[in-house]
């Protein structure tokens, strides 16, 4: 594979000062399976000019359009949805649009033309839309200006449509490709206004994903598919107990094996390097290693569970203390209280973690899939002792992210090994390393209380959570107000109308590293709150849907979603014997998602989720097809966790190791999933990668209660006995 070394051919490199048109002949980036330009951007590259402000749009002489994508494609569809936003303004033929990753190195060195390339928090569309529209509008306006100048007419007499500029009065037209060199020299003051939603033509339509063709024939290049000349392979063993240390290893035991190159101590463990991955992996398995497990070798999940439950008694930090909750509880007609528990969870993306690094004293090249390209560059630079300006990240397709690829432990190790052996190294974690050395969704315990009035409606809530601190685990700063948002998201913003709300949290870390897991705090908090609301409704003798309606009377956005959900999800309609519906609704990342799960429970207690109906308010939709796919994805990711997901610790180490004991929902477990919309529009642009996940666990648990009368207060469901 020499494609990485082929210099990209740019025939023209003129760039305008004002906003985003770069004219060039570009290698067909997606056509060869690599989403990044073959040659990384550098200040010396002919593609670059010092006066460039942004660089999202390239128009080829053949009128094809290259749009640069500054977020990581991990399945959530950004390569298509972000391209649609630019193309909407550009008035080009979307069938002629190609995409490639923007250069993170350029972003770091060249004044952030792509703003933040970090991909997480369901933020890609929400945080990029305005400047992507601006980039497209700016390019379009300059193409029009170029045509107008050529024809000696006013730009207002010209229109852009389908990749050409048209002067209707004279019947003349010119394709973008021929106008591009002139357009690139035009500066605009002021920048054109961007379209408002009622003007959208492409945004809001069902567009097939641009990356699909590459993903059905094996062509799509993921980090793990990287092949560079002279590359060697590394397999790594991380210390089985987190925070333990490598004491010693016996290299002599494996040094005569075929293909063996080196043993290299790395951060958190030890790597074996060989000429092939299989040989490296087998040699590592044969390497005698002595670890110093440290104090954490006594830790176990049962103790954590008791500690988290005990922590609910305080001391707690108040995240919310609104109204007079205390009085409401003193005067309550009835108090409902329940404790919920959620386990550690691994992300387990299908592509095991990997990174290919080529360290040289003055430059590092990295090939991998990362959610945070700029952070990856900084990490490689720091690890390798190289100026970040000279670190070139070749971001690849991500074989799943879900938060795991936000922090790149594998990259640090790959740079360490490459530096040690003086060659490009592809370092790959096995699935066992992935399951046992993740940064996990934190374990949590929650105690929820409601004070009911004589009408059966809650007058006050008190929510308490004890949970691992993600910020502390990552070594990141806590916000000045002392509140870790991830601990209380989904609790502090509970939408139900009550007179008093008190939300308190206790951050309690163990030696187990924790991090962002699809929908983060909402993943456990929505389970607790939406299960609890169901409990309160039953305590009040009310229907779960009608009960929520009463409590959401001030929230027309929630009501619109809830009502459509109940309608489409057949709430209240007959269902077969042994089955029932459960409902949950939750807002996360600016988007409200309600879900109704139809669940059958057999006499033996086997749970089968047969149908899930979802209703979404993300404000506006860029690509309804992609939203449907993300809801399906979010539901199944959450369903896997609800049914099976748990990481448990024994003697300081993770007990699970692969998909036989960290089970994943398969085809036979997969329900029919329907997605409906109740869009509120206006200024709202919500995220979509994560909000489908939180409601599914409580929807399923509430359905199980409706069938069996058994309340699920601890996940996963497989630990509950539901049969006779």
């Amino acid at each position: 594979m020499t494609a990485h070394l082929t210099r990209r051919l740019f025939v023209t490199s003129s760039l305008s000062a004002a906003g985003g048109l770069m004219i060039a002949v570009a290698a067909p980036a997606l056509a060869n399976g690599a989403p990044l330009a073959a040659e990384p951007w550098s200040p010396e590259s002919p593609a670059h000019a010092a006066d460039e402000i942004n660089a999202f749009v390239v128009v080829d002489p053949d009128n094809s359009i290259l749009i640069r994508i500054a977020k990581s494609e991990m399945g959530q569809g950004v390569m298509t949805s972000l391209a649609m936003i630019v193309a909407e303004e550009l008035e080009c033929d979307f069938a002629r649009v190609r995409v490639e990753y923007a250069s993170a190195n350029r972003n770091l060195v060249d004044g952030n033309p792509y703003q933040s390339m970090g991909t997480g928090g369901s933020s890609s569309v929400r945080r990029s839309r305005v400047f992507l529209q601006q980039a497209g509008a700016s390019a379009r306006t300059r193409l029009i200006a170029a045509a107008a100048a050529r024809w000696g007419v006013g730009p207002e007499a010209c229109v852009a449509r389908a990749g050409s500029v048209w002067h209707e009065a004279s019947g003349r037209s010119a394709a973008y490709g021929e106008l591009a060199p002139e357009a690139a020299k035009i500066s605009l003051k002021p920048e054109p206004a961007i379209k408002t939603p009622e003007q959208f033509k492409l945004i809001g339509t069902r567009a097939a994903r641009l990356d699909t063709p590459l993903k059905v024939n094996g062509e799509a290049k993921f980090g793990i598919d990287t092949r560079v000349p002279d590359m060697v392979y590394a397999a790594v063993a991380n210390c089985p107990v987190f925070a333990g240390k490598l004491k010693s290893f016996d290299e002599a035991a494996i040094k005569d094996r075929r293909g063996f190159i080196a043993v290299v101590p790395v951060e958190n463990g030890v790597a074996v390097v060989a000429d092939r991955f299989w040989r490296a992996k087998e040699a590592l398995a044969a390497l005698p290693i002595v670890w110093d497990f440290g104090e954490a070798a006594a830790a176990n999940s049962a103790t954590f569970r008791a500690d988290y439950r005990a922590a609910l008694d305080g001391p707690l930090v108040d995240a919310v203390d609104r109204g007079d909750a205390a009085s409401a509880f003193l005067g309550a007609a009835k108090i409902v209280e329940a404790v919920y528990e959620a386990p550690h969870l691994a992300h387990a993306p299908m592509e095991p973690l990997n990174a290919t690094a080529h360290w040289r004293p003055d430059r590092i090249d990295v090939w991998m899939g990362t959610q945070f390209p700029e952070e990856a560059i900084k990490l490689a630079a720091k690890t390798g002792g190289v100026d970040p300006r000279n670190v070139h990240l070749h971001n690849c397709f991500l074989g799943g992210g879900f938060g795991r690829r936000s922090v790149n432990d594998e990259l640090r190790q790959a740079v360490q090994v490459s530096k040690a052996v003086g060659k490009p190294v592809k370092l790959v974690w096995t699935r066992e390393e992935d399951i046992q050395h993740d940064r996990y969704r934190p374990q949590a315990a929650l105690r929820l209380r409601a004070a009911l009035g004589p009408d059966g409606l809650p007058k006050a809530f008190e929510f308490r959570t004890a949970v691992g601190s993600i910020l502390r685990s990552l070594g990141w700063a806590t916000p000045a107000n002392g509140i870790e948002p991830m601990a209380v998201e989904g609790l502090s913003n509970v939408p139900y109308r009550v007179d008093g709300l008190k939300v308190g949290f206790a951050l309690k870390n163990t030696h187990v590293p924790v991090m962002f897991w699809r929908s983060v705090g909402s993943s456990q908090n929505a389970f607790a709150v939406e299960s609890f609301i169901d409990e309160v409704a039953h305590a009040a003798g009310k229907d779960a849907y009608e009960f929520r309606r009463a409590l959401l009377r001030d929230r027309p956005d929630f009501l619109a979603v809830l009502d459509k959900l109940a309608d489409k999800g057949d709430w209240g309609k007959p269902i077969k014997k042994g089955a029932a519906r459960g409902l949950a609704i939750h807002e996360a990342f600016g988007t409200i998602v309600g879900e109704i799960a139809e669940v059958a429970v057999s006499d033996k207690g086997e749970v089968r989720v047969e149908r899930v109906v979802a209703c979404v308010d993300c404000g506006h939709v860029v690509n309804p097809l992609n939203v449907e796919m993300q809801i399906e994805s979010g539901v199944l990711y959450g369903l896997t966790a609800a049914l099976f997901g748990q990481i448990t610790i024994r003697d300081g180490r993770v007990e699970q190791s692969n998909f036989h004991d960290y089970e994943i929902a398969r085809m036979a477990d997969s329900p029919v999933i329907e997605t409906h919309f109740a869009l509120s529009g206006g200024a709202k642009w919500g995220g979509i990668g994560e909000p489908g996940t939180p409601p599914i666990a409580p929807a399923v648990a509430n359905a199980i209660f409706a069938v069996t009368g058994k309340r699920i207060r601890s996940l996963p469901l497989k630990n509950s006995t539901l049969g006779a």
Partner: protein
Amino acid sequence: MLVLNINGDIHRLDIEPETPMLWALRDEIGLTGTKFGCGAGLCGACTIHVDGVATRSCLLPASDAVGKTVLTIEGLGAKRLHAVQKAWIEADVPQCGYCQSGQIMAAASLIAQKSAPTDADIDETMTNICRCGTYPRIRAAVHRAAELAKI
């Protein structure tokens, strides 16, 4: 020296006979469309066809493929897109895409054996793991592929 017939090409590989086909394909030959997912035959990301039968290549010693015909995702639609690949595009199946080579190879094997698979057949046969949750679309695409294959 192992002599292997892969996608119609003969490859002579100087590798240990127990080398799993997965790694022979990926690291020796450069056919990276076949993916490493678990290394234990649990996820199916590495699914290939051996003499037409869907096989998890991470557990298959390369020596066991000697004298047999191996087909990978790169060979499946080499001349023209296979019905399964067409159906995958029509049904907008892939998200991250990492498991899809294996899913497609499993589906191609299924419809070769059963021209009109039922949902129960799909549940039983399509056991590959997808973390993006593309199962409902895979199910629809398998049915569609069966129709396309008849045309």
